[in-house]
């Protein structure tokens, strides 16, 4: 009666369990048989009410150059689709499709239109399928898609440095001043890191979902973004806790990694905005970004206040946290499909969630090895979280348009 169900003896030996696998053939046979039956006899014919097939087109990349417009188009209909004609600004234009012919569900083609686009103005591309359905694609501001060139890479790197590297470096420069911090100040600084990371988490996830919503339906954007974030979180936690909760330099590195991944996603999006024709980036905006991101550096510095890292560590942390912004802008400006940006942002969100957990644990453990989450509600910690959130929120106003 008191038999523990977990302690049933194995029903068969190892050799027999292989034979068990043979039973997998049964479901397989049923599956194949039902597919064959469905294809052969078409019993669902009755549902065919004469309605045209559902069609869907997603325009993933738009490249404007001296040859006109080129677009990467993904089909997502219930049946293979045909692009019959293409309008630009309500006029039919000759176009070439590569590869030509019908587009299978989930496949992509490049559509090239020799259209004399006008710098700085808006254009609307309309794809007309063979059933007469139309799919519009807005080019809000036509600018040439950045190309890989020495000049462009340097200026994009400069922008990335302002947005990503400089603020982290400035934050880390506070390190000597913060070294003498007492227990409460420590708690405050760590809690502030939690606050700013919480802000970044919400912001990053929000952006990931926004990009996900622009991606083709076949990718199930929001599910993809959330699962990616969760997976990224779990993997990083698993790696980080191989030798217990990370502290000191290890924790600082994880924070830098999380912020770096976030900055990578942000860089992708900035690059994509350039590619899609975002107007100018005002000096004011860029400075706003710098100010907004300074706390990131302070956050990285917080866990290493009690140890004595080498200078090379600071350089490494700065590049790890800020450098990906440069990479992101480089890649993003090549007009990548929105689902890639969504995935990058989601990975960043997972990484941020990981460091939130770890830094919170550190706050709860500060001064004593015993974890005590009640410390998080201490005035210093509470004030820190509030300060971090408030600082991020207020400085974000500088860059909101």
């Amino acid at each position, binding site marked *: 009666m008191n038999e523990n169900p977990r302690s049933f003896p194995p029903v068969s030996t190892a050799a027999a369990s292989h034979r068990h696998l043979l039973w997998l053939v049964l479901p397989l046979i049923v599956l194949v048989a039902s597919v064959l039956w469905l294809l052969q006899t078409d019993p669902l014919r009755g549902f065919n009410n004469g309605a045209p097939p559902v069609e869907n087109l997603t325009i993933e990349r738009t490249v404007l*150059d*001296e040859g006109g417009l080129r677009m990467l188009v993904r089909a997502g209909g219930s049946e293979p689709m*045909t692009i*019959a*004609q293409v*309008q630009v600004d*309500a*006029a*039919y*234009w*000759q*176009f070439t499709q590569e590869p030509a012919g019908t587009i299978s569900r989930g496949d992509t083609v490049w559509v090239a*239109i*020799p*259209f*004399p*686009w006008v*710098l*700085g103005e808006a254009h609307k591309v309309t794809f*007309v*399928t*063979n*059933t*007469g*359905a*139309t799919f519009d694609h807005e080019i*809000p*501001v036509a*600018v*040439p898609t*950045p190309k890989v*060139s020495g*000049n*462009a890479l340097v*200026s*994009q790197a*400069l*922008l990335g440095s*302002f947005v990503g590297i400089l603020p982290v470096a400035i934050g880390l420069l506070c390190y000597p001043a913060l070294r003498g911090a007492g227990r409460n100040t420590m708690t405050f600084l760590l809690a502030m890191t939690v606050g700013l990371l919480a802000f970044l988490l919400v*912001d990053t996830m929000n*952006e990931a979902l926004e990009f996900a919503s622009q991606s083709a339906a076949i990718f199930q954007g929001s599910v993809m973004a959330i699962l990616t974030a969760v997976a990224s979180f779990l993997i990083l936690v698993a790696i980080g806790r191989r030798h217990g909760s990370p502290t000191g330099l290890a924790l600082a590195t994880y924070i830098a990694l999380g912020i770096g991944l976030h900055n990578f996603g*942000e860089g992708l*999006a*900035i690059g*994509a*905005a*350039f590619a899609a*024709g*975002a*107007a*100018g*980036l*005002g*000096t*004011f*905006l*860029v400075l706003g970004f710098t100010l907004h991101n300074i706390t990131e550096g302070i956050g990285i510095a917080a866990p290493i206040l009690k140890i004595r890292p080498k200078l090379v560590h600071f350089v490494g942390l700065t590049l790890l946290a800020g450098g990906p912004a440069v990479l992101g802008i480089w890649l993003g400006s090549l007009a990548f499909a929105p689902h890639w940006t969504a995935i990058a942002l989601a990975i960043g969100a997972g990484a941020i969630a990981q460091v939130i957990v770890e830094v919170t644990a550190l706050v709860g453990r500060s001064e004593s090895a015993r974890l005590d989450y009640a410390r998080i509600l201490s005035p210093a910690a509470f004030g820190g979280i509030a300060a971090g959130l408030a600082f991020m929120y207020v400085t974000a106003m500088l*860059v*909101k*348009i």
Partner: protein
Amino acid sequence: MLRWAQAALSRRSLLLGGGAATIGATAICSTTTVAQETHGYHAAAGTKGAASRPSHQSAHGAMITVGSVDNERNGFHPTKMLTDWYIGTVTDLPDGRKLRTFEITAEDKEIEIAPGVMFPAWTYNGRVPGPALRATEGERLRIVFRNNGSHPHSMHFHGIHSARMDGVPGAGVIAPGDEFVYEFDARPFGCHLYHCHALPLARHIHKGMYGIFVIDPDPARHPDYAEVAKSRFYGSPENAEWQEMAMVMNAFDTTFDGENEFYACNTIAHCYAKEPIKVEKGRPVRIYLVNITEFDPINSFHLHGNFFDYFDQGTTLTPTLRTVDLIMQCQAQRGILEFTYKEHEAGLYMFHAHQSEFAELGWMGMFDVVETLS
């Protein structure tokens, strides 16, 4: 955080801000050069394209639909439709008048309205526009109409007839499978039209149920303008001198959102741009033109390099407008255009709606004026 980037997309304010120096401008510093290269290319592309395309297509560059329509499958050819008059069968009535009988069948048919684009049309005799009916003033007309379509349909003629023959609900709108005979006298002479008047009207018209209906003047009844009347009288030697064409300006809303995706003259977008209409220089041209475009209040006809005389509704033998190169028509308005290329050099002369949008969405074509038709 990237709201700025997305907002900037729709707001030119940053770009136009002027005063503020922008790092962005340096960040994408190659903008100006690339843009200039771009515009250099367009000029080059024009010349390159012109060499590889037939001359009549170089006139509009790359701005045209791609591919060609399968006219065989459609069962009608836009070039043949220009001169494909349906004169019916003529018998004598006891009172000495002529009785002209037309047979028209309504049917559902999927047609290709532009290369690769299918449209679920409702048709008269399997074509859009329906057959171009032609009769003579004073005849008795009998139109035997059968509805093989999936919806109630009718034929509502613009002409003089009794209420019973009007083709509106209660007077000639018939259910699928039914038959109705419209009977009335052919008057007044002119360039008219017929269309389905079942409800909802807009849907029945724009699905393709319309056609041109020409009543020629009887020369005997117009002694003062006998020569003019003879020239319009189908089958006369005077009429044979003219190069007559039936043109119906129409459009198709393939997404059924109340806005047309394709405009055309005789259904097929760009048909006469891809296959210019041959015109013999020495002989005058007469166009019977009808506008049946749904959803847009007006349509127009503009002729390049030439002027024409216009007979609004064709009910007069003297022009109602002289020496114009553009006329406007509201829906169901129609008229006759007369012009000649006698004094012109041979070449391609464009004609199109002068609503640029209509022209660019398919309603443009070319006359290929030649010395003699081979």
